């Protein structure tokens, strides 16, 4: 009887304690809890073999770089002593007799106090190791551009020079987005030799898969939940990672840059919580379990809704980004021809007939501005006076009529008995895109264009069988986004060289099959134009051609939403700095003495 009572008491206590709220995130212990909807397969892979945004964001907490780019787009040194430039002589351009640039190089000096988390110095060897592995044929990096022909020459114990021959257009801004991340050569050496020994005698063709398996085993020892990074260079180091649930990072005492007032006034631990369902992620934010959301967090429409429930507990930000939403039009192929899409007047009319201003106002409260070209307005290459196709149904109808498309008895445009009925694809399950798509469908219907929605999951639409095959009639309209750092824009998307086809294994990204000789010429010139103001002029002409031809319907530049609680400072980013973790060392709570240096713009 007594036992039973005890047992009852214990269980009552248990039930009671489970209902009571004990969790508290945040400032009390100078920690930060970040929520994200995606868990990376691995972190701190210096070669970024998985190419995922969330992996890079988390990696930056733990990885220092030679130079970085801040919220304003300005370069700052981190491992290096200074930013290379033509002025200080660390950036050199070599021209031939005709004035063409034939090679360029940058020189970095490593700070004396730059150390790995185990206290050993970061040396040129760590960058040589990175380059050696990057160039190794056995390593499955997505692309070796621009590193396949790069060379490192060591000047002294702390200084080395990277030479690009042929020259690399953006050699003066080698941030982590391009590569050359420090790789802990001492820590990895043994495992690398094991990889080398295991794969040395394998044939690169027949043994390809086996080589990749060996590579996976090698890199997993330093990058995964089952093999946490052993030494890191950044302000934080990983302490635990529970797959599917959370990742905990703690401050690295060996990190060399001390924020104002001392590192103890800034974050001591950072926790990532992985919550795949964005709706559940939102509940976590609202219920105070999270201090901030990652770059990979809520969708835009959810963020708009989250903004309505702020109640002063957190604040929602919409960071203008360089991600360009657009609707590609099939510009070539038999089907496109029969639907009139090869006629530039029809493409222009399609753009005139949609009211993008109303769309961004209704869905985004104007936070994502209408775009007129593919170049980001925050970049220096943007053409400010690009032609703006404001909604004009009359003009649209006139253009359709001029191209021979007249309304039939059912109101749908027709030419020679063929109805204008377009297949419109986008990524299924992306609710925001599906909403935009339905609004566009209704707007086109009003001018007599019948639109048939055919969506597939993103793995399908971006597969080799779908996206690159507009010329084969797989889609007529295709809505998706391109993301590009505005400072390294080259206009590759529209070069005819990148039109995907059977011959190039559908490798290009010019999905609409846009081909224009004048554009190609300008693009070719811009590619080797090392003078920024001259490149701006070339891009002005390229964008003029593009806006006249309308190979694709520009919609808007995406703003990336995130939320954070008040008092959290230096958790900021822009389209230049990319992810909040760029400034990991300075993140902290105002109440704990952290000084704000970068307010969110």
């Amino acid at each position, binding site marked *: 009887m007594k036992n039973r009572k005890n047992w009852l008491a214990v269980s009552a206590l248990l039930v009671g304690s489970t209902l009571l709220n004990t969790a508290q995130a945040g400032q009390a212990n100078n920690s930060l809890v970040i929520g994200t909807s995606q868990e990376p397969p691995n972190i701190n892979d210096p070669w970024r073999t998985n190419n995922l945004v969330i992996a890079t964001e988390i990696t930056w907490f733990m990885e220092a770089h030679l130079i970085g780019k801040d919220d304003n787009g300005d370069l700052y040194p981190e491992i290096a002593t200074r930013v290379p430039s033509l002025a200080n002589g660390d950036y050199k351009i070599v021209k031939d007799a005709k004035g063409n640039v034939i090679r360029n190089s940058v020189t970095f000096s490593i700070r004396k106090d730059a150390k790995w988390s185990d206290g050993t110095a970061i040396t040129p060897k760590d960058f040589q190791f990175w380059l050696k592995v990057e160039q190794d044929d056995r390593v499955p990096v997505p692309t070796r551009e621009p590193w396949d022909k790069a060379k490192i020459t060591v000047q002294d114990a702390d200084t080395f020079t990277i030479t690009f021959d042929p020259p690399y257009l953006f050699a003066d801004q080698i941030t982590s987005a391009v590569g050359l991340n420090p790789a802990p050569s001492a820590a990895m050496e043994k495992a690398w030799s094991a990889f080398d020994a295991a794969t040395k005698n394998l044939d690169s063709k027949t043994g390809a898969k086996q080589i990749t398996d060996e590579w996976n085993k090698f890199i997993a020892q330093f990058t995964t939940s089952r093999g946490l990074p052993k030494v890191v260079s950044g302000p934080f180091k990983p302490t635990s990672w529970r797959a599917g649930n959370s990742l905990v990072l703690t401050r690295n005492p060996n990190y060399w840059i001390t924020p104002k007032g001392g590192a103890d006034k800034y974050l001591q631990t950072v926790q990532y919580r992985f919550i795949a369902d*964005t*709706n559940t992620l*939102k*509940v976590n934010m*609202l219920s105070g379990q999270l201090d901030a959301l990652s770059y990979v967090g809520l969708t835009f*429409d*959810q963020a708009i*809704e989250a903004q*309505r*429930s702020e109640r002063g507990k957190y604040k929602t930000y919409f960071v203008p980004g360089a991600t360009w939403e657009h609707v590609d039009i099939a510009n070539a192929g038999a089907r496109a021809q029969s639907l009139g899409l090869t006629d530039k007047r029809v493409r222009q009319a399609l753009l005139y007939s949609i009211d993008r201003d*109303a*769309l961004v*106002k*209704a*869905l985004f409260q104007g936070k994502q501005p209408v775009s007129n070209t593919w170049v980001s307005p925050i970049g220096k290459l943007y053409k400010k006076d690009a032609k703006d196709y404001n909604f004009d149904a009359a003009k649209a109808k006139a253009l359709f009529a001029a191209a021979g498309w007249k309304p039939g008895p059912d109101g749908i445009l027709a030419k020679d008995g063929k109805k204008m009925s377009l297949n419109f694809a986008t990524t*299924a*399950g992306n*609710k925001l895109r*599906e*909403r935009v*798509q*339905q*609004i566009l*469908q*209704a707007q086109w219907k009003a001018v007599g264009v019948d639109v*048939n*929605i*055919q*969506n*597939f*999951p993103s793995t*399908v639409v971006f597969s080799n*069988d*779908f996206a690159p095959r507009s010329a084969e009639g797989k889609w007529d309209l295709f809505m998706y986004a391109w993301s590009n750092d505005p400072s390294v824009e080259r206009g590759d998307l529209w070069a005819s060289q990148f039109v995907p086809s059977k011959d190039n294994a559908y490798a290009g990204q010019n999905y609409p099959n846009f081909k224009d000789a004048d554009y190609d010429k300008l693009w070719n010139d811009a590619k080797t134009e090392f003078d920024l103001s001259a490149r701006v002029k070339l891009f002005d002409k390229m964008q003029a051609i593009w806006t006249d031809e309308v190979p694709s319907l520009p919609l808007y530049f995406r703003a990336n939403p995130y939320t954070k609680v008040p008092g959290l400072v230096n958790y900021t980013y822009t389209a230049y700095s990319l992810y909040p973790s760029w400034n990991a060392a300075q993140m902290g709570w105002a109440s704990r003495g952290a000084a704000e240096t970068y307010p969110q713009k």
Partner: protein
Amino acid sequence: MTTLASAPAPLKSRSTFQIALKRLRRHKLAMLSLTVIVLLVLMALFAGWIAPHDPNAQSIFEIYAPPSAKYWLGQDELGRDLLSRVIYGSRVSLLVGFSVAFLSILVGTLLGLLAGFFGGWIDIAISRFIEFMLSFPTLALQLVLSGLFASSDAAPIVALRSSLGASANILIVVGVFSLFGWMGTARLVRGEVLKLKNLEYTDAARALGASSVRIMLRHLLPNLFAIVIVQATLDVGTAILSEAALSFLGFGIQPPVSTWGNMLSNANEVVLQYPWIPLYPGLMILITVLSFNFLGDGLRDAFDPRSRL
């Protein structure tokens, strides 16, 4: 002679059927459910007359507007009338439910009948096939298959997509659900046939020279009616719920077609700000599935001579 042989079975079944109907009429909950189902079907059939607005008419500056005099239940994520969408949504949800039930029952009864009646290697083959189908993780394969069909390059599927447009998607969902929905019926029918096969009247029919097909169609089939109809009502409910689940996982029927399933999974995202929006499709699913389950239960009792009503 043949008339004599066939006489007992239909007579018997007609009388059980009549008794069952009588008993069902006394089952209040089942009758209530049947009324609800009839109303739902009428709503789906006459959606065009009942719905106050065009379910696809957008009003993008009145997104998530609360209930008003013009829009009784409020407006959705594109400012469309929620009431009209709920009414039209019943079409697809019921269509999916009824078609899946029909196809599953058709295939299940046929295979169960063949296996039970002929026995031998036919039975072994069909039984192993049932086990084979049951061994698949259903939901995962439904995801794989709906993805595969929705994007397949095979000529017939491409033709289907281009001729049916948005409806092709519904067809795919129905097909995939039916593929994994018939095994329960087949097992039930097989068991029942094994029992019936040994009853006197089947033997009598056989002795009188009735062909196998005739015995199956005229003697066995009518007696299977009870278990099949009960199973069918339950299948309708399961299919409606599965469609909602598939939508929730992002593999369901695509917009702009409105189904209760995709309305619910869309609305779930804004439940905090606009709690009334997920309530409508959620309650519609609940009420519909509940009605079918109650009806099925009532039918089972009605056909069961031992139960008290």
